[in-house]
């Protein structure tokens, strides 16, 4: 509170004017909340100076009563305001000082509820599922231990077919009987056949899951891995639809700026077939170690469902057409998250699990 000149009317009365100046002086000198309270008592308390003044009005001559009463109340109102203001300011100051004494080292680590996480492969599978759900697909599953019929035969891969040698198969011994045709599925494609057997077209499905091939583990091979298989069968489905679908997927998964290349290829259960390359996400297509200098990364195999497959499941190849595609989840993870070794996914080292 700065010292102000005594307001006009109060100044006309030497006694009240002096009281005003005294209040100002005392208030200015008060440096703490208790000191302010002392001033309040001294002026406004039961025996305070202003209180006494007002109590003394009745003893004044009638002509002074009115004037002193008005000025006295004016002074009292002023004193109350000034005391409150000073006390509030002083309170803020003292609180501020008290808070300063509660300073924290905000660089100490936070106290968190420890978060766990889902496996990176599960997260990628979910991401893939969601992209295709958005395109109208449903998610279906099938067994990991399969019959030769679903894994090979009904997928147009007869016993003697050269492509069968491309996928070395684990065979399974059933403890209850000597069956030669039980195996670990080498691909998620057998789910295609199982779904078509039980469901008439139209069909828009994807099937994520584990697959197994006889590969000794190394940085790029694992005897167990994950695939996502896709299948569409409907009227009038074209190779252009396959291309558009996978372009959409690839850009969603790897970024809109990626280039995509469709190359003719061979798979026993699709025709025409293709492999899909995405422009290298490491070097952006300039050529590097990961893409072996080609600028392209192979990420998908696909094609139009071979009419022979329809024969196995009883679809009419003349009235419907469709496409199928398959992709390796680990490969996507290796590329997208720069994990250097496929074995890391199944070691489950906590220090890796924590990163995703």
């Amino acid at each position, binding site marked *: 509170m700065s010292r102000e000149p005594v307001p006009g009317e109060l100044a006309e009365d030497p006694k009240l004017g002096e009281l005003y100046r005294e209040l100002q002086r005392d208030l200015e000198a008060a440096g703490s909340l208790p000191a302010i309270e002392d001033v309040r008592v001294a002026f406004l308390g039961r025996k305070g100076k202003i209180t006494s003044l007002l109590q003394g009005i009745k003893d004044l001559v009638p002509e002074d009563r009115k004037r002193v009463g008005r000025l006295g109340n004016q002074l009292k109102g002023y004193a109350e305001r000034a005391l409150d203001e000073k006390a509030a300011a002083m309170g803020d100051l003292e609180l501020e000082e008290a808070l300063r004494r509660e300073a924290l080292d905000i660089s*100490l*680590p936070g106290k*968190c*509820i420890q*978060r*766990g*996480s889902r*496996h990176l*492969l*599960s997260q990628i599978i979910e991401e893939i599922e969601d992209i295709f759900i958005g*395109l*109208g697909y*449903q998610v279906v599953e099938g067994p990991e231990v399969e*019959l030769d019929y679903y894994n090979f035969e009904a997928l147009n891969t007869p*016993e*003697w077919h*050269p*492509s069968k*040698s*491309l996928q070395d198969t*684990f*065979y*399974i*011994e*059933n*403890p*209850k009987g000597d069956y030669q045709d*039980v195996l*670990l599925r080498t691909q998620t494609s057998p789910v295609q056949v199982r779904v078509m057997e039980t469901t008439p077209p*139209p069909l*828009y499905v994807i099937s994520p899951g584990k697959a197994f091939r*006889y*590969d000794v583990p190394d940085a790029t091979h694992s*005897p*167990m891995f994950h695939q996502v298989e896709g299948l569409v069968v409907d009227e*009038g489905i*074209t*190779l*252009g*639809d396959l*291309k*558009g*679908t996978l372009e959409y997927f690839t850009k969603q998964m790897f970024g809109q700026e990626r280039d995509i290349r*469709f*190359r*003719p*290829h*061979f798979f026993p259960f699709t*025709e*025409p*077939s293709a492999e899909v390359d995405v422009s290298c996400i490491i070097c952006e297509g300039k050529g590097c170690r990961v893409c072996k200098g080609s600028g392209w990364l192979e990420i998908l195999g696909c094609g*139009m469902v071979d*009419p022979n497959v329809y024969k196995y499941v009883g679809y009419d190849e003349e009235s419907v*057409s469709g496409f199928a595609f398959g992709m390796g989840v680990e490969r996507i993870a290796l590329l997208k998250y720069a994990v250097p070794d496929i074995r890391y996914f*199944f*070691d*489950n*080292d*906590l220090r890796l*699990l924590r990163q995703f």
Partner: protein
Amino acid sequence: MRVSLEWLSDYVDFEIDAQEIADLLTNSGTEVEKIETIGKGLEGFQVGLVLEVASHPRADRLSLCRVDIAGSIREVVCGAPNVKPGIKVPLAAPGSRLPNGTVIEEAVIRGISSHGMILSEKELGISEEASGIMVLDDAVEIGRDLASVLSMPDQVLVVEITPNRSDCLSMVGMAREVAALTGKQLKMPPSRVEEIAEPASGLVIIEILDPDLCSRYAARLIFSVKIGPSPWWIRRRLQAAGVRPISNVVDITNYVMLELGQPLHAFDYDLIEEGHIIVRRAKAGETLTTLDGVNRKLTEDSLLICDSKGAVALAGVMGGEESEVGERTSRILLESAHFDPPNIMRTARFQELPSEASYRFERGVDPNGCVRAADRAAELMRELAGGDVMAGAVDAHPRVIEPVEIDLRVARTGKLIGITLGSNEVADLLRSIELDMAGTKVEDGVEVVSVIVPTFRPDLEREIDLVEEVARLRGYQKISSTLPLTSKNIGGLSRGQKKMRSIGRTMAGEGLYEAITHAFISPRWLDILDPSRQYLPNDVFRVRNPISEEFSVMRPSLMPGLLETLRFNFNRRVTDLHLYEIGRVFLSDGDEKLPREPLRLGCIMSGEWFHKQWGGEREEADFYTIKGVLEELIGALNICDWDIRAKEFPFLHPAQSGLITIEGSEAGYIGTLHPRVAREAELPEKIAVMELDLESLIASSRDPRYREIPRFPAVQIDLAVVVAEDSSCARVEHVMREAGGPLLREVQLFDLYRGEQVGPGCKSLAFKLTFYALDRTLTDEEVMPLRDSIIETLRERFEARLR
């Protein structure tokens, strides 16, 4: 397949560079994996003629050579054993640099100056041959630049041929693709053969006893051959293709195989008994020693080439050692045959003997290309090995395989690809790969092109095969991208799939990390966990051909994989581990061929838990921690009817384990891992585990319903009761709820105390009881009698006393 461009240019005039050819091939289905350059850095070397060779006076193994390089004579010291006067050799002058970077300098070798160096193929960087200097063909001109004489450098496309494209396993096949893609004409190699008058027919008899496995067997006789090295152009082409040159006759069979795709075999005619070739299945117990020196037991479905005494070759796979062409051979019986692909595949697989020949036969070789290939090889043997070709091929052809005719519907082709096509465009595309058009017609109002497929394309059998040819030759890039109209279909997850996702999220939210472990485990785990198979099944599914014992049993439980993971981390000093896994286990399903594959949720917790931060108390995960995770999961899934009952499991601590039931059925176990198991598996002592059947969890998950929120204040009472140590908390709580009646809404344990104040054999359980009514504020007069009744009932049932 390795495709030398120098060689390829014999059959097609391409005017584009290697990268452009590679791109065209890759974009039409023949993927070029890489482009190699061979014979780099040969500029600056010259052809020299060795005039004289004298021995080095001070070194037995060195010779002094005088080498003529067109005008000037150089004196060179040479250490190669095969140097001799009259041969032409590659010579490096002082100052020139070898492809490996070594600079040739004037040198004094044991007192004699050497003005250059005669080079081996290895030093030239064109092969691994280092046993002697390279001997050039006699015909080369002295003094010429070596690179041009060797037609180097050359580029080799390393190409991945898909299993359907057997026709591309030859230079001519590759040239046919390149010609089609560049609009050029394919130039076939010459088929003319110059024969002597004497016919072969009287000298060879061919009998095919199993025509189902051998549709054709053609033989030619070439007499008076001189076995020796092949000329450079053959050697370099074989080397570029990755085939090692051996001798002229063998090299020619390989050369023609690489050129035309027809595997050939050269027998020493004098070692074929009576010139009699018999093609038949092997007999039981029959054996044959193949060219690689291995004596092979043959199965009865292997096809053999025999003479009148016995087997001389494993048909289509490898020749026999006894009838092998050697240095002294002068009369050749050349075989060019067609064998059944599946049979060759089985034999090569069974004998673990993949060869260039079997690789081609199992994918399919042109049955009508036998004679042409035999003629080509015979002519080369005449030209390069000085042989006399006996007149005529002896061609046994019991089963003729004709070209097939396929009708291709033009509109359907366009509809499948998603483009508009005309019949002319279709015909032009197919003609470019040498398919013939028998004509176009309209059938049922549909335009059809009739296509005749030559027998060198056995993969083209159906209309769809031709659709693919049209699509790939026209180019996938030119197909515009569309999306199917999926108005009939709505995407989404099933209820179970949504629950699965929420289970994963809940577990991660509880602070656990998801592990994915192998579906096959080591059988040792089953013995450690449950040696007498009380809980885990005895009849597990095994992998017949496991990579190793570690991956040989299909898991009947998720626990082994999780414990293995724990050990993996523990060994790497990661000791605080809280993991879950969602995966299938494999259980026998009665007499079914396939196992049941129920989905399980497995969970292990070991080491420090939750209070990780500074200042807090260190807390180890234990039974109650994992039980807390279970309770939260049950809560998240809103399962109302569940329980844990004490039960022993062989791999769990006998006094810290329970059976989880959901809606009355067994759904899994929970407990502390048995210390015996932990010790045997080299795991830390205290591990809390559980395993649950996910399908029963999901099936019992209910949608939550609204429960009225009390508007009137609740009354809370703390009650500490002392009960015997063996009284279960759940029972006490249950009795309190019964006695407390409907106004008792919550019973929450907040303290467990054992010690002096309660005496031995007892424990004190402290509960917070919450009472409220939905329609009024409860008074003490209402609550106190309930409290007294609870205390009284506990006293009766448990001899409980207040603390």
